């Protein structure tokens, strides 16, 4: 998987929102690539810009958003410059999206079958009976029992886990090359989450899609991703393979997140935590955006933004602690 081609390239993407409280720098100059057949984990807390980034890839951004700079390259074309009419052939067909709330992302007025037919009609030019066969077959493959019955049902007649499976089946109808999964299991119970995650893995093996997996849950990422990118306050602060990030987290924020897992040994001890709260997007601090919560903070962190430093093994970190050839500076 290491040397596979890039399927999606995002360069210097900058998205700001104008709000009453000022300009919100939701996504500030981020770059990353998605390789073929890999799962890229995008981790971050609420408001860090992970969803906005992916809405930009889907060209579904709120009109209030301004894309100041950057490009999103898919098949050598900049998605941001493709006309909406032309992009309709890509969205849903070549790039699919699975949302967090299966309950609210289906239209409650149409049956699952009708919604599947809509996809088949627009993208695959299938007739009603053809799409019924395809839909039922796909629902069976994602593990929905009695797919013939489910095909005729409305979203409210199904449970959350079943709907999320239906959502995955719906996305697979067109066999998209890229699947964006935005917190796909957050609304599900743990036992159901395990099943849906396993399903996504086996589907990737079968269909060979690339997946961007967005979540705040590092545990889920450890199970799913090949590479992990950590986002904080509109910036990508650390990139690396999943093994590297979990074994050798470098950025103080990533380290803090890793320690926030409540381990058995902590019982009757004080839990480690990151002090402070996530800053609101209108009031990101100067310099490194993590500096007010960082325990290694130095003067430079408050003044200048750190740039990305490669510390080997495809491991990149944006932190002043690592400017000296990847070695942590001793003087604090």
């Amino acid at each position, binding site marked *: 998987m290491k040397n596979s081609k890039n399927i999606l390239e995002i360069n210097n993407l900058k998205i700001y929102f104008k709000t009453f409280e000022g300009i919100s720098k939701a996504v500030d100059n981020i770059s990353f690539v998605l390789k073929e057949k890999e799962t890229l984990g995008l981790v971050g*807390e*609420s408001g860090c810009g992970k969803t906005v980034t992916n809405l930009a890839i889907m060209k579904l951004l709120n009109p209030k958003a301004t894309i100041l700079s950057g490009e999103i390259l898919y098949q050598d074309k900049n998605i941001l410059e493709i006309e909406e009419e032309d992009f309709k052939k890509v969205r849903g067909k070549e790039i699919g999206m699975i949302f967090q709330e299966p309950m609210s992302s289906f239209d409650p007025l149409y049956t699952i079958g009708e919604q599947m037919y809509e996809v088949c009609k627009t993208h695959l030019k299938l007739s009603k009976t053809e799409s019924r066969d395809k839909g039922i077959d796909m629902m069976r493959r994602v593990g929905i029992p009695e797919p013939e019955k489910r095909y005729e049902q409305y979203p409210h007649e199904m*449970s959350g*886990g*079943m709907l999320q499976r239906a959502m995955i089946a719906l996305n697979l109808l067109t066999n998209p090359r890229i699947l964006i999964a935005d917190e796909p299991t957050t609304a599900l*119970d*743990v*036992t*159901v*989450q*395990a*099943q849906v*995650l*396993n399903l996504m*893995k086996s589907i990737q093996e079968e269909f060979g899609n690339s997946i961007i997996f967005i979540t*705040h*849950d*590092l*545990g*889920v990422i*450890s*199970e799913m*991703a090949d590479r992990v990118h950590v986002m904080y306050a509109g910036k990508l602060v650390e990139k690396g393979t*999943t*093994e590297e990030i*979990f*074994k050798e987290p470098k950025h103080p*924020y990533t380290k*803090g*997140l*890793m320690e*926030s*897992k*409540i*381990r*058995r040994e*902590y*019982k009757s001890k*004080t*839990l*480690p*935590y*990151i*002090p402070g*709260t*996530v800053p*609101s997007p209108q009031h990101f601090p100067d310099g490194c955006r993590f500096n007010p*919560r960082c325990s290694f903070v130095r003067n430079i962190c408050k003044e200048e933004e750190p740039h990305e430093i490669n510390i080997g093994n495809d491991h990149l970190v944006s932190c002043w602690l690592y400017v000296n050839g990847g070695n942590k500076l001793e003087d604090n």
Partner: protein
Amino acid sequence: MEVINLKIIKAKNIKKYFPIRGGVFLKVTGYVKALESINIEINDFESIGIVGESGCGKTTLGRIITKIYDPTEGSLYFYDEKGNEYDVTNKLDKSIKSTFRKSIQMIFQNPYDSLDPRLTVGEIIKEPLQIHRVFKNKKEEIDYINELLERVGLSATYTTRYPHEFSGGQRQRIAIARALTLKPRLIICDEPTSALDVSVQNQIIELLKEIQNEFKISYLFISHNLDLIHHVSDKIVVIYLGNAIEEAPADELFENPLHPYTKVLMSSMPSWDPGNRKLDKVLVTGEPPSPINPPLGCPFHPRCTYKIDACDKIQPELLGAEHKVACHLYD
């Protein structure tokens, strides 16, 4: 400190059915069987954890103990600080109402919904004090509110601000301050951290622990997060589809889970170790059945890999001394 184990609450065979109405005349067409015969006892300065998936009835149990709901069957007893027993199964008696409400408070899951957006932080915390007429003197009241706010890690200058001006973590701190105002003996924490950012969750848990030690409060922790429940509880009750299926001290339950469902729950937790992934080893299939039509016998039998003959016929009882389990495999 000498601990005299005073009881606060005892719930016996609590059952709660919610009627489903349908048709033109809204006749009762069925019941959501939220809880079936749950027993629980909470003593002073003790933490009990309730763990289970969504829809298993854990929130309903919390709400019955706070008397937001009345149980359909079973009895609920409340003990005052002198150890007198009061039957609070039905409507609260006037003589005990004020003591009961002061003694038991609740912290809700979502601090975005549980604080009145039209009241300032000061008013939110003041409300219980005024209802129970705790202070005669305004100055004392203000000092007390400021002290409370500072205790939960907020500035006393926040009293004039509104909830929308705060982040999720700060709002949960306000909710904790509100729960503390009347010096309760028991606080029900219903998923207190699950709506918060990961990096903030541990701060709130630490705050809850500090407060417990300082004020000697008991907690009933309700959560789906096993790690959290293990960390904060002395004793854990696992609930599945309205039935308590296993009950044990926290460490014992984690070292030696007995019920197949408890084992499944534990194996479904992600590993946090990419070199040692484990979710593909999870054996369970399907989802919890609907509480409107629970299966006969053991509620877990349709998903259980160890199912034997008796499982779909006879409902197992919760048996055992320290470590109780409701499963035919251990009969």
